[in-house]
């Protein structure tokens, strides 16, 4: 009966209730969608960081990533890769010779990171072969083939079959140049990455750098990103002479960004909920003040205080429980829809390493947490009006008309 009374009371002032319910629904929608947008963007960024830039974890000689000295290579790389490939979640490993060198065309020259890779193995790790938009990923036999990004192609004014001169430092510190021909052009959508890296066959670079065996970097990609940290830790212990780092530590600021993201969701939804809390509180307070006499009569004829309290509480919670799920449902619908279709930012954040089409995403756990936050908010919003109702003195309440 209390529930029945509470329910009917909500619809006594239909407009007011609908306004509050709509406010709750729209507020949640805004908060959840904004969070999903950020989370989606972040997730794509992580995906791209893992896939393209950092893999799940990598091996280097200590200091290599600071100084990029040709001499800091891992001699027993092949043996380590064989070892790592035994792990069940490993999708691929790729050994890379890396030279911070120069690239020059007829038009201009500049600094670049030259990656000497095994095309088949690299494909398993970065999937770069699928990003080739023109030409091929090292298919067909040609001498000194080179794969560059569309960005680099534009910058240096070259195209397929153009010749570029790469300059690297060999083991003895000598500067050596070699001519390479463009056989493929890729575009990953990650501007920063594309601008920085060009790819050649490992053996070609090996000859230039005069490193007989071994590579500078072993990148490992996993089917389960959560295994990155434990596996990195395991191999760090097994190879104390090497630096073995998971992606979270390889990408500067990544760990921080991800942690901030979670806080961001709570923050944004939190602010919206506080605003809603006051609007609900206000509505319920008005509802109580309008019904002073009625509540007085209820207490006069013997309704216990805790039931009066419960009645107001139910009413508030019901109000929220209509708006809340409605908002969550709307959010879910919108996030799912745009999660499929994507939101085109028109490349504005491309150069920051973010994709140009964002697919909003929110995990089930976050919806659940928002739902709990809403429920807690409802109860908090209910307490003050309900207490106000309790403080009524029946004799006085009944005298008011």
């Amino acid at each position, binding site marked *: 009966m209390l529930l029945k009374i509470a329910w009917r009371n909500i619809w006594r002032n239909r407009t007011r209730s609908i306004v509050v319910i709509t406010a709750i629904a729209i507020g949640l929608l805004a908060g959840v969608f904004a969070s999903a947008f950020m989370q989606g963007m972040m997730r794509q960024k992580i995906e791209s960081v893992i896939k393209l830039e950092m893999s799940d974890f990598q091996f280097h000689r200590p200091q290599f990533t600071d100084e990029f000295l040709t001499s800091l290579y891992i001699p027993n790389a092949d043996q380590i890769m064989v070892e790592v490939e035994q792990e069940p979640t490993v999708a691929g490993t790729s050994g890379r010779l890396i030279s911070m060198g120069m690239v020059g065309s007829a038009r201009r020259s500049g600094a670049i990171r030259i990656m000497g890779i095994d095309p088949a193995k690299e494909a398993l790790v970065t999937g770069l072969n699928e990003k080739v938009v023109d030409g091929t990923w090292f298919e067909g036999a040609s001498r000194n083939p080179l794969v560059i990004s569309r960005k680099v192609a534009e910058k240096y004014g070259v195209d397929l079959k153009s010749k570029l001169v790469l300059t690297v430092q060999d083991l003895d510190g000598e500067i050596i140049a070699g001519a390479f021909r463009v056989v493929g052009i890729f575009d990953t959508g990650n501007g920063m990455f594309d601008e920085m890296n060009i790819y050649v066959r490992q053996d070609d670079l090996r000859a230039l750098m005069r490193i007989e065996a071994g590579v500078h970097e072993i990148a490992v990609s996993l089917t389960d990103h959560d295994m990155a940290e434990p596996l990195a830790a395991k191999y760090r212990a097994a190879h104390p002479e090497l630096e073995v780092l998971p992606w979270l530590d390889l990408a500067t600021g990544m760990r921080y960004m991800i942690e901030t993201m979670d806080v961001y969701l709570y923050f944004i939804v939190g602010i919206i909920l506080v605003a809603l809390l006051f609007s609900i509180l206000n509505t319920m307070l008005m509802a109580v003040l309008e019904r002073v006499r009625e509540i007085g*009569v209820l207490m006069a004829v013997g309704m216990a205080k805790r039931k009066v309290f419960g009645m107001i509480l139910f009413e508030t919670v019901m109000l929220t429980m209509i708006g809340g799920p409605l908002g969550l449902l709307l959010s879910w619908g919108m996030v799912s829809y745009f999660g499929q279709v994507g939101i085109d930012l028109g490349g504005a954040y491309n150069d920051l390493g973010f994709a140009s089409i964002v697919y909003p995403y929110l995990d089930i756990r976050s919806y659940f947490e928002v739902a709990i936050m809403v429920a807690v908010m409802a109860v908090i919003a209910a307490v003050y009006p309900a207490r106000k109702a309790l403080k009524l003195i029946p004799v006085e309440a009944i005298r008011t008309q």
Partner: protein
Amino acid sequence: MTNYVIETKSLTKTYEGIVPVYAVRGADVTIEDNEFTAIIGPSGSGKTTLLNMIGGLDRPTSGSVKVNGHELTGKTDSELIDFRLKHIGFVFQSYNLIPVLTAKENTEFIMLLQKIPKAQRDARVEQLLGEVGLADKMDKRPTELSGGQQQRVAVARALASKPDFVLADEPTANLDSASASNLLDIMARLNKEEGITFIFSTHDQRVIDRARRVITLEDGVVVRDERR
């Protein structure tokens, strides 16, 4: 010694203020079972204040109220609420009913608070609304009922808890004379046939004429108490 339904001793209520108001002064009132009593007196004479103290809605400044031997003074607010639920039926001047509940639900509500099982509730609601002549209006909400009909539902609700007595503060004040007379008929019949004790305050001479006992207040003092 007679067992009184209500027994007040030197019941006094003073409202402190710049000028203190002596709303009720040293009232000694005893009501026996099955009485049909009107409390009358000019406006401001203390009728409402007296009834409220008897009903455990208001606390006396001094003196005592006993209902069926239970001392009301000294009970906590929550104990008083519970006591009212179990022992006293209330009919107020107007707006007695919960607007969102039907006549049936308004009556049933009190029994629900008393945790009376559903079958028993249904039977009693039907019987009570029948007795006040509203068997056909069970599912109407207060707004769909006339003032007189609303007061009759209030009487049914007051009786639902099988109280020791029913207190009614000016139950007919907002009713036209036909409805007032009809309400009094019902109350008088319930008093006669079912032995329900009623105490009501009124200004209305025609209502006073129906009472079997009339207690007159003037300036908070009981000046006359006649049975007929």
